[in-house]
């Protein structure tokens, strides 16, 4: 069937901010979808609140609305744009839920908007637990004994009936939010109640626990003609019990016989046909390892994280094909974009092995619970490709960027045997590394591991092969062993370490192609992975070529912003006529889409892996400034490998990051910075801290996202932080910086410099005072509260610093304005988190310009002028978004270490409206009235009076702990006193448990708090979804905004392509 004739203008719903469970994969999917629709000549309207995405660029859709993802906003956009149809399947659970709500309300029908893709009834059948079970039953597909309940009492009754342990799965949530395994009544009470609260429809599924079965996924695709295909099978190495997003996953499934495979494949095809899915769909199965018994776990009637992985693993563009199907095409009418000679109606054949490893945020959240379960905790993932399992595993661990080049970890080496075994058995997030360590120490056999963990012994034996090879290298090193080790994926540097000797053998990697068809057809837009065979399929062209280094897995502090920058850099290079080469390993991103660059290398970003690529491609230059710290860290290596670094030079990058050199520069430029020093030991740190006088800021050099950064108020704090930092990095290589902490206003600037001129698209101001990491603070553009003199100083300093550091390309500078003076805190000669949003709101295409400047075009000739770009008439407020709900044990207090996983943007004519939109988009639900609970540290007590008054005026009853209440009452703000946690009932714990408060203002006493009242209050706030402000600045701004805006139900939706 050809394209539906009624489709002319399509609304695409994005997935909103990056949170755990819903990350960059939806930018990838959404971007592919928009492009696929535009390719068909359709007009595309996009809504997504996430400004860091590529899909919200003006060249991806015709109309872009960076607005809160609420039904209200979507309605308003539909009324304004009048699209004839809406495509929701690409926006994750968020997009799907929104569309479902509007469909159920009848809004689409009323306004003659067609829902493209899978219809409402089918989505309901897949999403609603009971309807799903009924459907499965009707087509003879087995499900696990389970029941949907709406009260905790029913949950407990059913669990008694089927027996513990049971799994709790809330309906309509993403990343398994609020789910878990309950082993007894008490646990079920806790998890069940939480799940009910988080479910949009107050429903949870109680299900018989089948932990230990094989977890197999199929990505399936169906069109309206009922053609159905499976794209890829995937097998979780972690069996059922660990969320698939947190599992190590291999594709294709490796341990199934043809019978088992066909049984599940046919089940998947039957399911997708029965549900009448149109587009991509993910089916998860549990398979009893000792029989043909299986059960359907879950079906996602939309593109997902797994479909992004399957797309990258096979070369099959699931999102693109899903979009084409949605507008009417049959699978047999859509051309296979990789071969360009065959059609999308085929099942990709793979002639390699793909492994996905999750990337966890526990390097930042050292105190969080690190045990894996049914609730996803990973922030990102990496994918590796090789033609043997062992090499794929070793590439994967290198790609993770967790400070290791091999299947070993510094943190594991220091553990006792008992601790290693404990970690293997308790589903610790580093379990795979513990298995390696256990096998290496020979303290456990693969049989024992298999028995306890239910990990298939097939995989464990492969792990053991790696350890056996280590032993062989150590004991019988020779050229033959070297070659075997190379094929198994060992790095030269690792072999050298193991052999205890240097050697003269060397073998270079060659590259094979991912082509969807195991070489059966010639590929037109392939991508590459390295092996140690003889034939190199990557043929170097004569074109001028530039290597762009990507940013690896998404982690806190390094999110999709950097993928945005890498992709834009590639596009700009293409425009300038260069052949573009990307090296990256993140399967969730646009940069690793098959047609983003001319050549894509799916590789770990390490020196040795890059050396092979460079030998094959001999690029004319490399660009490192867009790939975040991942790429920056490789600058020296790439340069030593003989490739010219384009843009800011390695030595200048070093000058910005090396404390002494940077201080010299500031001295020369007469620019002030907070006093501080570089130290290498804890003793030095204490000495310096006392000289500077507390509070001081402690942080390692060369990091992103304030990793390991803390404000220390005492020697004890310094000692604690230094301990944590030295556990993660080698202090000798990366010294620690100790700075005087100033409580001032933070200003941030991104600029482009060509060596002569600079262009500052805009100046941003942070709403919170210094001390809150820039990624976690609410950021406002244009800066509102700085004087003309300060602004001029900032422009002047920016220019001086950019030129002083010989910046060619982008630079990000953070300032503090303290007592009417400007201090520099940080200069990053690279792209930053704020580049995407500033580019969008100022309409200055920063990466594009920076790339052209890097290639030699002067800024003056690029049409955007120099100096400070004209200020937008709109105010833009970036609001951070956190994933605290998924990370138990993490303190939600904002500080110098970044904690947010994503961001949203509010765009409006006034600051208040922009902030209001931002708050709405971030999902912070501030009620019009209710009960506010206030408990602040002594130093904040005077300041909080005015804020409490504002909330009282808004209509809140104020509750406060003893001394805070006293201060408030003494200052004529009526506040009821609430008992502390350790006092008799009813106390604050009881009130929180009963969900009595609607907003909480709580500032911690100092630094890191142990398990105090404050910590527990904040965690309970998270668990009860109560807005909790840990900075008075945020609390004040929100109150002010609510006072102005709460009656403003009719805010204007703004098309950012028309700014």
């Amino acid at each position, binding site marked *: 069937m050809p394209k539906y004739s009624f489709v002319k203008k399509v609304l695409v719903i994005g997935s909103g901010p990056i949170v755990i469970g819903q990350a960059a994969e939806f930018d990838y999917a959404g971007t592919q979808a928009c492009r696929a629709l535009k390719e068909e000549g359709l007009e595309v309207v996009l809504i997504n609140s996430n400004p860091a995405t590529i899909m919200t660029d003006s060249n991806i859709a015709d109309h872009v609305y960076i607005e809160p993802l609420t039904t209200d906003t979507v309605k308003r956009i539909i009324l304004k744009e009048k699209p004839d149809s809406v495509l929701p399947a690409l926006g994750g659970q968020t997009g799907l839920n929104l569309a479902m709500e509007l469909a159920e309300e009848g809004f689409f029908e009323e306004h003659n908007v067609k829902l493209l893709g899978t219809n409402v009834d089918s989505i309901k059948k897949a999403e609603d637990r009971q309807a799903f079970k009924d459907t499965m039953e009707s087509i003879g597909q087995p499900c696990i004994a389970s029941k949907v309940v709406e009260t905790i009492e029913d949950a407990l009754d059913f669990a008694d009936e089927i027996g513990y342990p049971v799994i709790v799965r809330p309906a309509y949530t993403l990343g398994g939010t609020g789910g878990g395994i309950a082993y007894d009544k008490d646990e079920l009470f806790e998890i069940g109640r939480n799940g009910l609260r988080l479910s949009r429809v107050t429903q949870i599924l109680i299900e018989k626990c089948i932990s230990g079965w094989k977890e197999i996924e199929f990505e399936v695709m169906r069109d309206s003609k009922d053609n159905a295909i499976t794209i890829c099978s995937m097998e979780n190495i972690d069996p059922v019990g660990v969320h698939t997003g947190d599992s190590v996953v291999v594709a294709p499934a490796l*341990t199934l016989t*043809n019978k088992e*495979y066909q049984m599940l494949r046919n089940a998947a095809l039957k399911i997708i046909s029965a549900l009448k899915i149109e587009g991509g769909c993910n089916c998860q199965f549990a398979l009893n390892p000792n029989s043909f018994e299986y059960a359907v776990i879950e079906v996602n009637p939309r593109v997902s994280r797994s479909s992004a992985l399957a797309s990258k693993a096979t070369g099959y563009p699931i999102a693109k094909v899903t979009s084409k199907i949605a507008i009417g095409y049959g699978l047999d009418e859509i051309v296979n974009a990789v071969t360009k000679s065959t059609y999308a109606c*085929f*099942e990709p054949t793979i*002639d*390699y092995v793909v492994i996905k490893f999750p990337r966890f945020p526990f390097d930042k959240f050292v105190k969080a619970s690190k045990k894996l379960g049914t609730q996803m905790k990973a922030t990102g993932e990496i994918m590796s490709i090789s033609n043997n399992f062992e090499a794929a595993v070793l590439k994967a661990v290198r790609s993770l960027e967790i400070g290791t080049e091999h299947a070993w970890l510094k943190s594991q080496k220091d553990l006792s045997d008992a601790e290693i075994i404990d970690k293997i058995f308790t589903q610790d997030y580093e379990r795979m590394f513990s298995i390696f360590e256990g096998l290496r120490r020979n303290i456990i056999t693969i049989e024992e591991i298999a028995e306890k963990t239910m990990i298939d*012994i097939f995989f464990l034996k492969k792990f053991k092969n790696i350890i056996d090879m280590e032993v062989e290298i150590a004991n019988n090193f020779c050229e033959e062993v070297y070659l075997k080790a190379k094929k198994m994926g060992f790095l030269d540097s690792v072999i050298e370490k193991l052999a205890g000797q240097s050697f003269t053998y060397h073998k270079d990697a060659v590259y094979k192609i991912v082509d969807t068809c195991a*070489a059966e057809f010639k590929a037109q837009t392939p991508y590459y992975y390295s092996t140690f065979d003889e034939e190199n399929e990557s043929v170097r062209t004569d074109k001028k070529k530039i290597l762009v280094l990507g940013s690896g897995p998404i982690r806190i502090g390094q999110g999709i912003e950097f993928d945005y920058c890498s992709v834009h850099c590639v596009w700009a290079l293409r425009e300038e006529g260069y052949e573009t080469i990307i090296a990256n390993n993140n399967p969730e991103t646009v940069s690793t889409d098959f047609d983003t660059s001319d050549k894509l290398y799916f590789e770990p970003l390490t020196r040795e892996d890059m050396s092979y690529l460079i030998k094959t491609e001999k690029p004319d230059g490399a660009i490192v400034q867009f790939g975040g710290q991942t790429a920056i860290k490789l600058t020296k290596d790439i340069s030593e490998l003989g490739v010219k670094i384009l843009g800011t030079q390695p030595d200048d990058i070093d000058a910005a990051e090396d404390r002494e050199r940077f201080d010299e520069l500031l001295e020369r430029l007469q620019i002030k910075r907070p006093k501080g020093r570089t130290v290498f030991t804890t003793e030095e740190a204490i000495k310096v801290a006392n000289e500077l006088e507390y509070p001081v800021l402690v942080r390692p050099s060369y990091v992103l996202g304030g990793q390991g950064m803390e404000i220390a108020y005492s020697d004890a704090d310094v000692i604690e932080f230094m301990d944590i930092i030295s556990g993660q990095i080698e202090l000798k290589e990366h010294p620690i910086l100790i700075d005087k902490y100033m409580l001032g206003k933070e200003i941030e600037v991104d600029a482009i410099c060509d060596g002569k001129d600079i262009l500052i698209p805009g100046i941003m101001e942070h709403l919170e005072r210094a001390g809150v990491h820039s990624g976690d603070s609410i950021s406002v553009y244009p800066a509102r509260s700085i004087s003309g003199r300060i602004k001029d100083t900032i422009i002047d300093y920016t220019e001086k610093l950019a030129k002083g550091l010989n910046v060619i390309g982008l630079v990000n500078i953070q300032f503090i304005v303290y007592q009417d003076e400007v201090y520099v805190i940080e200069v990053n000669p690279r792209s930053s988190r704020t580049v995407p949003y500033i580019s969008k709101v100022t309409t200055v295409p920063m990466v594009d310009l920076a790339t052209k400047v890097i290639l030699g075009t002067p800024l003056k000739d690029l049409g955007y002028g120099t100096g400070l770009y004209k200020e937008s008439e709109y105010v833009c407020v970036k609001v951070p978004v956190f994933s605290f709900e998924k990370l138990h044990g993490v303190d939600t207090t904002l500080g110098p270490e970044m904690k947010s996983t994503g961001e949203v943007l509010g765009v409006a004519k006034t600051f208040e409206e922009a902030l209001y939109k931002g708050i709405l988009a971030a999902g912070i639900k501030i009620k019009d009235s209710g009960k506010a609970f206030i408990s602040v540290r002594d130093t904040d007590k005077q300041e909080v009076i005015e804020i409490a008054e504002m909330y009282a005026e808004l209509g809140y009853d104020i509750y406060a702990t003893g001394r805070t209440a006293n201060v408030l009452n003494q200052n004529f703000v009526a506040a009821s006193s609430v008992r502390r946690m350790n006092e008799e009932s009813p106390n604050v714990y009881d009130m929180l448990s009963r969900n009595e408060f609607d907003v909480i203002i709580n500032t911690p006493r100092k630094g890191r708090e142990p398990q105090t009242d404050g910590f527990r209050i904040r965690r309970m706030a998270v668990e009860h979804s109560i807005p909790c402000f840990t900075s008075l600045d945020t609390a004040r701004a929100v109150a002010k905004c609510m006072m102005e805006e709460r009656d403003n139900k009719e805010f204007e939706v703004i098309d950012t392509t028309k700014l």
Partner: protein
Amino acid sequence: MKAILLLEDGTVFDGSTRGASCEVFGEVVFNTSMIGYQETLTDPTNKGQIVAMTFPMIGNYGTNSEDVESDSFKVQGFVVREICDFPNNFRCEKSIDEYLCENNICVIEGIDTRALTRVLRDKGTMNGAILPADTDISKKLEEIKAYKIEKPAYEVTLKEKKVLSAENAVCKVAVWDFGCKNSVVSNLVKSGCDVTLYPAETTAEEILNGGFDGIMLSNGPGNPKDYNEIITEVKKVVTSGKPVFGIGLGHQLAALSMGADTEKLQYGHRGASQPVKEIKKDRTYITVQNHGYAVKADSVSSDVGVVSHVNINDNTVEGIEYKNYPVTTVQFYPDTEYEDNLYSRFVKVMTELKGEVR
């Protein structure tokens, strides 16, 4: 020990074999199925071939006595990148190495099967040999080129007829065995047919006089044009008025018998993901295939029949529906997983015609 795979164009791939040194010749083909190696090894259609697997890890789940397509190995040799020596599956009885070794099947491992596939894709299927590494290549090339397997169907067909009964059978089917896979027979049985298998040499008269409701022309190995004597017999069956269902070689033989022509494909269709469109229904199915020859589309005269199925990758003929006779043939291995599958259609045609006769 070190070994080589030598192709007739002189291309050499280094690998190794286990156990005693072996020397085998055959037509080298690649198979893109990611799993199902045991089925491939025992598929009679592979008679005379050295089969290379494009998937790099072979033997992961070991072998068992159930998952076979015939009672013996049919391949000349097996080419893989990596053999798994530590398989795991609840039905696993032996590792693939033991399994092959016991049956004296020569396997060469450590081969860059992707590079091999690229050669075969670009230059076409050709002969080759697995040889010890120290072989004098120049001496073997002639032998490789000369290798030809003569009418392999006769080698893989049954020696005597064989009867299999279905529970509650609705039809009686004769399967003309040119190298029939076990799964074809079990699909018929599953679809409600009592099955009698006849050797390839059987005459049309014997089969037509057997009192069957329909005849199945099975899959099998070799160049269809080599089987002139069978083609003559097949024509009698095709034009008998009895329902006939042909697959693979059976499909090609029927076409040749009715005046159509066949050709050798550059590198064949061997794998589990060949997309086939049924033209009338405008539906595309992912099929399992294993063939090196195909019926030429323009040779199917409109008086005789119509092309009912095509491969959407290369537009080759995948099925023919004959005029005037209730005869349907397809090139691929049909499965029984969806309603209205080709087996059930065959059964339907048989039962309908049976009714008319009565």
